[in-house]
């Protein structure tokens, strides 16, 4: 038996590997083919020309601006919640977790409708906001709110996991070193969880950048005001397929850059820190 078992195991390993490669390859094709054909569809020179189009530049600028603002808001409001979820036990914790994850599974258009009923002129909070002169629907601020709504779970989830991963012993030691919880949070917990926080921020930025359904429902599609890149793609599709392709390639490049920077961030940061230390010595 012992002489046979390893061979059978090896044969099983090969079969497993072949099927893994076959299935994995199909998935890669499914994901990759559309992207490759998208890039192949338009000559690079054409892309550069399209980039000069002021309408496209406008959409790109608005997209970058609003998604960045949404990410900052999400990070600022999400940090305390993530900290609470990672470190505290309280009644209703499960419910709060599910509630925060909800936008991730909610159809974005539903999110848009929900935002309208809340912050629309006749909405629950819209009335109060209107009284102090703030209007969200069909404004750039509304775009930011829509993006923050759908992007929040990505940041909170990653930050929560990052906080939970930090060994409690560092927090205990900090507490015995005169550090009140706020100081420990800023000087120990956040730095140690930094890679996860950055990854969460990048993921929620990418999600905000790609936001379509909630934005068009809640903020509309006004060039220069609420027309972000995904909306511009959709609009271009109605009239000019090539323009839509060019915009899509551009969005693809931006997204790819964000994703790659997430993957590279921790090791890049370590390398940079090492170089800084060498320079300091």
């Amino acid at each position: 038996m012992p002489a046979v078992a390893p061979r059978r195991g090896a044969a099983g390993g090969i079969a497993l590997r072949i099927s893994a490669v076959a299935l994995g390859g199909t998935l890669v094709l499914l994901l990759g083919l559309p992207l490759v054909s998208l890039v192949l569809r338009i000559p690079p020179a054409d892309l550069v020309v399209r980039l000069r189009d002021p309408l496209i530049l406008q959409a790109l600028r608005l997209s970058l601006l609003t998604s960045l603002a949404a990410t900052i808001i999400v990070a600022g409001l999400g940090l305390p919640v993530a900290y609470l979820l990672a470190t505290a036990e309280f009644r209703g914790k499960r419910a709060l977790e599910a509630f925060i994850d909800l936008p991730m599974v909610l159809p974005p258009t539903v999110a848009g409708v929900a935002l309208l009923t809340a912050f629309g002129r006749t909405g629950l909070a819209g009335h109060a906001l209107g009284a102090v002169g703030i209007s969200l629907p069909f404004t750039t601020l509304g775009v930011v709110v829509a993006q923050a709504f759908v992007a929040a779970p990505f940041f909170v989830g990653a930050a929560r996991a990052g906080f939970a991963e930090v060994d409690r012993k560092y927090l205990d030691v900090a507490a015995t070193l005169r550090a009140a919880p706020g100081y420990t949070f800023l000087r120990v917990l956040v730095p140690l969880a930094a890679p996860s926080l950055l990854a969460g921020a990048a993921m929620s930025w990418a999600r905000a950048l790609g936001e379509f359904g909630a934005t068009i429902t809640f903020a509309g599609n006004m060039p220069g005001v609420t027309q972000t890149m995904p909306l511009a793609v959709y609009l271009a599709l109605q009239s000019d397929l090539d323009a839509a392709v060019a915009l899509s390639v551009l969005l693809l490049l931006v997204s790819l850059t964000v994703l790659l920077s997430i993957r590279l961030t921790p090791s890049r940061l370590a390398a940079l820190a090492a170089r800084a230390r060498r320079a300091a010595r």
Partner: protein
Amino acid sequence: MLDAQLAKRRDAFALDVAFEAAAGSTTVVVGESGAGKTSVLRLVAGLDRLDSGHVTLDGVPYADAACRLHVPPWQRNIGYVAQDYALFPHLRVQDNVAFGLRAGGTPGRRIRPAVERALELLGIGELSGRMPHQLSGGQQQRVALARALVLEPRLLLLDEPLSSLDIQTRRAVRVELRNLLRRLPCVTIYVTHSPVEALVFGDRVVVLDGGRVAQTGSREELLRHPRSPFVAELVGTNLFTGRATDRAAGSADAIRTPEGVVAIGDAGGPDTVYLTVSPREIMLSRTLPEGSPQNIFAGSIVELIPEPPGGERVRVVLDTRPPLVAEVTREAVSALALREGVQVYAAFKATGVHRYT
């Protein structure tokens, strides 16, 4: 001076201990894992809350369950060195050491000199720019000590400070650490599972067993007068507890213990008596010994333990009734062909029994 009376219940485990510790001395809290050593440290540090009892340092109440007082750890004048040192991995050595000063709001110009003094005290000035992952275990320990001592705490808490080190380093660090602790003016609480460390470091020793204090005393008291099987095992001797009234029938100089009858020189009064027999007083033989020894027990060998590890003597654990530990030379082990499972006779003289009440 530290005055601690600590009670804490967690699931099935209940801790209930009380002890005092004087300034300028080291009190070792020793016990097996699960005895409650770490709980003691966490309660004294304020990392956990007391169910009942109190913690008072130099007359300042830090915790008192009766009036729901709990001073948080960051407001206690303590230093704490965690078992694996827990240096902040993202901070250089000097920033690790400066952490407590900065957190406590020490003015910036006073921080640098204080950090340098602390590093100098531990002899690690040249490490100040390193990151924790670039340090050896012994260096990390010194940084952790510097980080705690820079705050000039009135109470220093050490959780198994040597257990994360390899054996070679441990020997060197042990001597250094002992010399350092002797110079410190604060109360030092030193937690360990190692009887050797307890006897090396402990001006006083608190022995924990199952969440309770088995015995408290100076190391001499512990060595001479162990009062529980656990302490006896800790200091490496054979202990029997019995009552003089339970004298074995027809013999004025023997005592019946729950484990068996032991002949002693003089049974004394009617109180509970403790009997110890040094492992070195016990002779082993393969055949029934003749002549003077009054105590002869038959049994088989459970374990042979070189003492010290790799040393010239061997501790022989026996399953006799009562169970005994003998200590013999390496030569005797080979001459008698002793190994696990071998049947032997263990014999000792009545005059070899140390008796106390």
